[in-house]
């Protein structure tokens, strides 16, 4: 009975341009991967700007980076990796048709993502109060003010873009909650969860690089 219901749900999801649900799944999965490639290049431009500027002003970058809170950064890294675990488990739950587990795991993923964003809000407000936000109110007390402003421009650009992607990701996850609760996902049809997972893991990978590059420059000095 559950299989028949699942099959019916699956069939209803077949779009007119595809011949089979398998073809649709293959196409949408490839589509998501290509979108992620565009995201690699999108963030990549920022990484390139960061790389060149860091090379040109290493001392200044190290000094600027020191004013970031490594503890909060490391905590956030752990939170995001945790959310990737719960996301992967949510995909598993969808694949085996465990609707309550799927719902719960999606919810936890959203919660962890929100914790991450909450910490970022705290960090940004610290920066705001310390006058480390680039622009008219920027004020740097150290040796390399020019490099510090460049560093923080890139810091806000990169973590800001990342945070925007997190917000979008949480939005998409939220949209999955209702269908998950209704038991729409099963072995026959679970691609939306899988594809959201791909996106979420990608955003995690970006942070895996951002954290050491931004927070851990020259800490040994």
């Amino acid at each position, binding site marked *: 009975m559950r299989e028949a219901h699942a099959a019916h749900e699956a069939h209803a999801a077949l779009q007119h341009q595809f011949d089979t649900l398998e073809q649709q799944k293959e196409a949408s999965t490839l589509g998501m991967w290509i979108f992620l490639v565009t995201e690699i290049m999108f963030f990549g431009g920022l990484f390139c700007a960061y790389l060149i500027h860091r090379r040109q002003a290493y001392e200044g970058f190290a000094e600027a980076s020191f004013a970031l809170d490594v503890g909060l950064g490391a905590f956030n890294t752990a939170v995001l990796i945790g959310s990737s675990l719960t996301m992967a488990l949510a995909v598993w739950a969808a694949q085996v048709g465990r609707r309550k587990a799927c719902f719960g795991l999606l919810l936890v993923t959203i919660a962890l993502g929100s914790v991450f964003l909450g910490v970022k809000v705290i960090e940004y407000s610290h920066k705001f109060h310390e006058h480390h936000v680039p622009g008219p109110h920027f004020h740097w007390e150290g040796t390399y003010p020019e490099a510090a402003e460049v560093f923080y*421009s890139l810091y806000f650009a990169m973590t800001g873009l990342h945070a925007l992607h997190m917000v979008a990701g949480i939005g998409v996850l939220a949209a999955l909650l209702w269908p998950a609760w209704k038991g729409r996902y099963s072995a026959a049809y679970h691609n939306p969860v899988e594809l959201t997972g791909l996106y979420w893991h990608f955003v995690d990978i970006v942070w895996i690089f951002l954290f050491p590059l931004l927070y851990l420059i020259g800490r040994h000095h």
Partner: protein
Amino acid sequence: MTIATTHPDPAQAATRSYLGGGGWDLKSWLLTRDHKRIAILYVISITLFFFLGALGALLVRLELLTPAGDMVQADTYNRLFTLHGVIMVFFFLIPSIPATLGNFLVPIMIGAKDLAFPRINLASWYLYNLAGFLVLWAILLGGVDTGWTFYTPFSTTYSNSYVTLTIVAVFLNGFSSIFTGLNFIVTIHRMRAPGLTWFRLPLFIWAHYATSLIIVLGTPVVAITLALVAVERTLHIGIFDPALGGDPVLFQHLFWFYSHPAVYIMILPSMGVISELVAAFARKRVFGYHFVAFASIAIAVLGFLVWGHHMFVSGQSAYAGMVFSVLSMLVAIPSAVKVFNWTATLYQGSISRETPMLYALGFIGLFTIGGMTGVMLATMGIDVHVHDTYFVVAHFHYIMVGGAIMGYLGGLHYWWPKMTGRLYPAFWSRISAILVFLGFNLTFFPQFVLGYMGMPRRYWAYPPEFQVLNVLSTAGATILGVGYLLPFTYLFWSLKYGQRASDNPWGATGLEWETTSPPPTENFLTPPVVTKDAYDYSDFDEGAERRPHLAREEEEYA
């Protein structure tokens, strides 16, 4: 033996056609998911922008009739050539063939019902128009004076024009482009008809596949770079402005990483068209099919390794300049391979001088000149002399106009009967092809000489000894303009008064010619199965109508 591919009753055909036949339901067009309708919507949009960009060019050429800057002010002149560049590059050339002919033909040529993601396709068109609206607004407010290249720190710090607004427009347009590219890649990988292996695909598909690879890999980089320029301009931070600790050469690296491959986005689809035209009007399979297919991929990949040839005098290292110079020579090779293969296709072919073929022949000659001058520019020593002169302007117009636009016009004429069900008037189409060819050469050949003699580009005044060549160039531009206005007029006219077209007026091979003109919404009444290679003219009989080379599931033989 007759295979019923035509509908004897035009009224019946009209009601089943994707065009709708009869009334014009605006909502069904504006909310369509049909790739064919989206293609038509795009034809309308990019035509409007083409003529806007052409207007910019016209005003530039009028100013350049006289050596003194006497028609407009210098600042206005900067805004005019920027308008021309921004509109023509981003709003015409990049989307042109892929969004129109590509959107229409890619699913049909591979036997699919639509693209993989029809809603993303429609979103692409809406994004294009939103971007278009923003750029129009920027122009009406006063425009931008940075050149389409937005070099820093002028664009970030010193320009007093609507840079940020224009950048937002270009940024959105970039995503419109990415949506198209993503759609094509997935469609070509996952939705080919049974029997349609990669090496049976029309070369038009290979070209669009290669183009789409470039789009998805390159466009995001220029998007984030321009976003940084806008942020820098607004917040006065120093990523690219040296006065604030920034690096202007870094901007150029990031900008040209996309903008060089972008020129291959502009030319590859056109090359795909030429492969189709040459095969159809020489009645021969394309010589060296595999080489042409691989050449498309090679151009896409190699095109990403050469961007520094735009930066020989920027302050980049001499070592980097040398490497970019050598790699740029390499990227010319696959282009040359294509030209040789098209020429070999023509050899001993049964050539007919239909208008699309005239454009294809024009392309082969003009693209070769453009390409050869490109190799000259890749030679660092020459480039140092002619950088930022009219030599460069002439080079890229030979490729963009003599190449890309001729391909677009050739393709538009070739597939016009398929898309609209009407034939265009042959006489006027030949006249305009000739006018375009003559006008084009008169406009741009003198510019090679001007550039070599030292006339800088983007200058609104010049020494008197350059006037004769400038006058010739402007005269050519006028003829070219007439050459473009004619198709605009007669193609439009043909929609109502043109002779009705059969399924395959050219007797060409290809799945698109095996369905009705215009096609039904679902593209094929019965899903095709492919059994033969592309361009199979082996059973061609001069004067006889083409027989389809593919099997159908329920066809009956008399």
